[in-house]
């Protein structure tokens, strides 16, 4: 027993010495990060799933978002990122069919975790790199991870667009201000593509001045079982105008060929830092579902007011949201169809 304790202690001392020495080279060190989030939401009409956007959808319940764990490692010109998530936000609420669980009797359920990122990158030069694997989508303003968004609930544009794209892409930086990505991708949000590598995509990145970034995104292809070829054109931009004020914008148009509908919309994201630890922001959105034969598409408008109270790694996010639909898509307190709905939520996010 004594020898065992002594051996373990010596191994720990040696390990700490080695690890301390290794951390002197941060660029090559293994990076570990992640987040945890939980929330409470109350629909003012006391109706579950009334505003049916992604995440923060469970009514009058202290609910969980997701546990997110990410690893990154650089080794010379090569690097990899592996990011995995557990919990509703990272699994069935965002990518319900990423990977079905099957046995000899067929499908028995969904996996209890999902890959958020799993890719390998190789920088051939300082300007040219290639990436292959399963990546967070390059389309849109908002993301699955709650640490990457200012608002806790998400926009209609986010919910309608892709979340992840598996594929291979090449990126060339013409200068510090302009770069271009082009690639071949699978269907949206799936680990493997059943109808072959079916999509092409591109992203033009422009950084006109310090603090202003703009991305023009294009993704087109025919998904497995889809009635036509879907094409999305998206503009995502944000500008930190000064230390206090930031303005973001997302606009997108998605069309499915052969008159099979799609959507278009625009969202603006003004944010004001009132104190070093508290920022107040809004999201105003217009979203329209395109008509298909015999069906008229619905229009939505939404206003979300969000606060971010930060203390180190911890962020408290109070939020109130008001939505309107042209076709009475919501329910009032008597469960009668209504054009309006509103909700309040309070989320706690911890990033590490």
């Amino acid at each position: 027993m004594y020898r065992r304790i002594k051996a373990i202690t010596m191994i720990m001392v040696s390990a700490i010495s080695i690890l301390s020495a290794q951390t002197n080279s941060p660029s090559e060190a293994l990076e570990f990060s992640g987040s945890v989030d939980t929330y409470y939401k109350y629909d003012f009409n006391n109706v579950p799933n009334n505003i049916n956007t992604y995440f923060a959808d469970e009514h009058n319940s202290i609910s969980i978002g997701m546990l997110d764990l990410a690893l990154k490692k650089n080794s010379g010109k090569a690097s990899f990122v592996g990011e995995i998530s557990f919990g509703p936000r990272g699994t069935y609420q965002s990518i319900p069919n990423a990977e079905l669980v099957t046995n000899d009797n067929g499908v028995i359920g969904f996996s209890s975790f999902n890959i958020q990122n799993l890719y390998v990158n190789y920088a051939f030069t300082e300007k040219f790199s290639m990436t292959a694997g399963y990546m967070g989508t390059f389309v849109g303003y908002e993301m699955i991870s709650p640490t990457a968004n200012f608002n806790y609930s998400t926009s209609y544009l986010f919910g309608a667009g892709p979340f992840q794209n598996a594929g291979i892409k090449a990126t060339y930086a013409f200068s510090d201000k302009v770069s271009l990505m082009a690639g071949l991708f699978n269907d949206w949000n799936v680990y493997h593509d059943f109808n072959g590598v079916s999509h092409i995509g591109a992203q033009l990145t422009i950084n006109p001045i310090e603090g202003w970034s703009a991305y023009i995104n294009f993704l087109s292809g025919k998904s497995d079982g889809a009635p036509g070829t879907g094409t999305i054109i998206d503009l995502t931009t944000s500008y930190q105008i000064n230390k206090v004020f930031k303005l973001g914008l997302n606009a997108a148009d998605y069309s499915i060929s052969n008159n099979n509908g799609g959507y278009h919309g625009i969202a603006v994201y003004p944010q004001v830092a009132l104190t070093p630890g508290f920022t107040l922001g809004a999201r105003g959105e217009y979203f329209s579902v395109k008509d298909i034969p015999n069906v008229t598409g619905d229009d939505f408008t939404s206003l979300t007011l969000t606060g971010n109270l930060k203390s180190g790694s911890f962020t408290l996010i109070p939020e109130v949201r008001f939505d309107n639909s042209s076709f009475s898509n919501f329910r009032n307190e008597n469960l009668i169809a209504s054009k309006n709905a509103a909700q309040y939520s309070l989320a706690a996010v911890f990033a590490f």
Partner: protein
Amino acid sequence: MKIFLLLLILIFKLNSGFSQSTERSLSLDERGKYIYYEIVDSAQLPRDTLILRTKTFFKSNFNKHHSEEKPSGEVSFKTDGKFQINKGVLVLSHPQGEINYKFYTEFKNSKYRFWLTDFIYRPYKRDRYGNFVPDGNFFSKLEDNPGKLNEEAWKNNIDAAGEQAFLLAESFKKFLSKNSIVIPPKEKPSTIINTNW
């Protein structure tokens, strides 16, 4: 007893590994700005050698620098640099932000002085691909008030800047005081089968 000693070493290792910054903290100058400042007596080395080595050090460690020689013979160097600040310990860490700074060096008679100041913190955020990148053009001077809620995190940034400035200072002084290193030419590897046998 031996176990107790080993545990003490373990605790010491943990402390020395994670808490060195308290010994290497920055000072405030007359402008109220954080500064790392040192004067070094360099009587043992010729002044021209020191200046040449400083030029080499700046060229190899920074993108560009500015040098100036006054009529009085004083020579000064100035450059901009940045430290990356990590969050967490050992392998459980990731980039948290960067601290930009200005690095000044002056040579006078048989001594030189250098200082790092004008520290500016730029936070990183994790992008959609899992990489940590600068969060827009948001930045804060190290002297700025972070507010009560972020006081501890801000203190860690100041400590990290002090630690990194200390390491840079050590590296700079060592480079200037080192003996010239002669790199021997590479020997051509001998082949097993050749014409000289």
